């Protein structure tokens, strides 16, 4: 029972990533690579689902069958690029420098240790919130980490 059900695999680390599947869909694979992918995908529900979604999306976009996303969502996504401007970055460095200064002063002026420490904490929080939205920052780090991990998996798939 386990064996048979296991033959219809769920997504695993051994699954090809989206870029590999996109090459398959585009017909850009060597015959041996294509055979290997089909051998895997034919028993993998997650990969088949990805292939189906990719085909459907391509044809729906080409046929104008996709509804527009709410404006608010699009603006939020566009806003990601605005966060990355030099001015914004400079501002965040100023808050960081002020945080470090307040933290250093808390030790060099023991009389005002607590006051400077609190100031460092407030300035630090300001630095985090100014540099990028906290959630975005966490997601960015997570995305970068996953990207590295996916590169590893992708290179394993090619071997």
């Amino acid at each position, binding site marked *: 029972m386990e064996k048979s*059900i296991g033959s219809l695999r769920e997504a695993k680390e051994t699954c090809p990533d989206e870029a590999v599947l996109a090459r398959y869909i585009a017909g850009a694979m060597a015959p041996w690579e294509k055979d290997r992918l089909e051998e895997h995908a034919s028993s993998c529900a997650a990969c088949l689902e990805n292939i189906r979604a990719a085909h459907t*999306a*391509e044809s729906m976009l080409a046929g104008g069958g996709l509804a527009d996303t709410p404006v608010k969502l699009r603006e939020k*996504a566009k806003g990601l690029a605005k966060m990355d401007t030099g001015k914004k970055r400079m501002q965040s460095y100023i808050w960081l420098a002020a945080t470090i200064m307040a933290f250093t002063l808390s030790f060099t002026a023991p009389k005002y240790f607590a006051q400077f420490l609190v100031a460092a904490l407030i300035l630090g929080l300001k630095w985090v919130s100014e540099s990028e939205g906290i959630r975005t920052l966490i*997601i960015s780090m997570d995305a970068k980490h996953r990207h590295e991990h996916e590169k590893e998996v992708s290179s394993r798939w090619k071997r």
Partner: protein
Amino acid sequence: MDRNDHPEELVLGCINKDRKSWDAFVERYSKVVYWAIRDRLRRYGYDHSEEDINDIHQDVFVALWAGGKLSQLRDPGKVAGWLAMVAGNAAIEYFRRARRQSPPSSVSLYEQICKDDDGRTLEEVLPSGADGPDRQAQLNEARAELASAIEGLNPKERMVAGMSLLHGMKHAEIAAALELPVNTVSTTVARAKKNLKEKLEKKRLL
């Protein structure tokens, strides 16, 4: 024609952090991401809100802009299909991380084979007579038979059968995807269905 009309130029511009390209990219492909998220959540039966979709949508664009995900794309001409896969997988990942919910078993998707024919679920088409644990054992046996019947096909046939029976793709769509004649696809699907039914009937599971 504006240079941003070419997906290749658009993707390259985004990788090089060009804001104008990014705005045009979001404008053009946000709908693909949005559709793919909704589609995957619906197909996998996740109970979701509009807020979940919005969060996943933003997660995808953060991964594209800040996470360097776009540089993975090797054929920018096919960006829409690639994005649909990225967005669908992000939706699964979101539910795994935020709700500790895993995708449904592929076996339950698989049972739609019976639904296709009769409009009833596998559980409904099983002959009555057994109850409780016996019925569960019978259902497990039927599921195992379904899986092993599919295993008996060669990889190409398995893909055709899977795309048609599991994922509901039309024969013409499968033919285009796998570069096969539509007739071959139709024959393969019919043969796979017949094999599955025969196997289940032989075991007196249908």
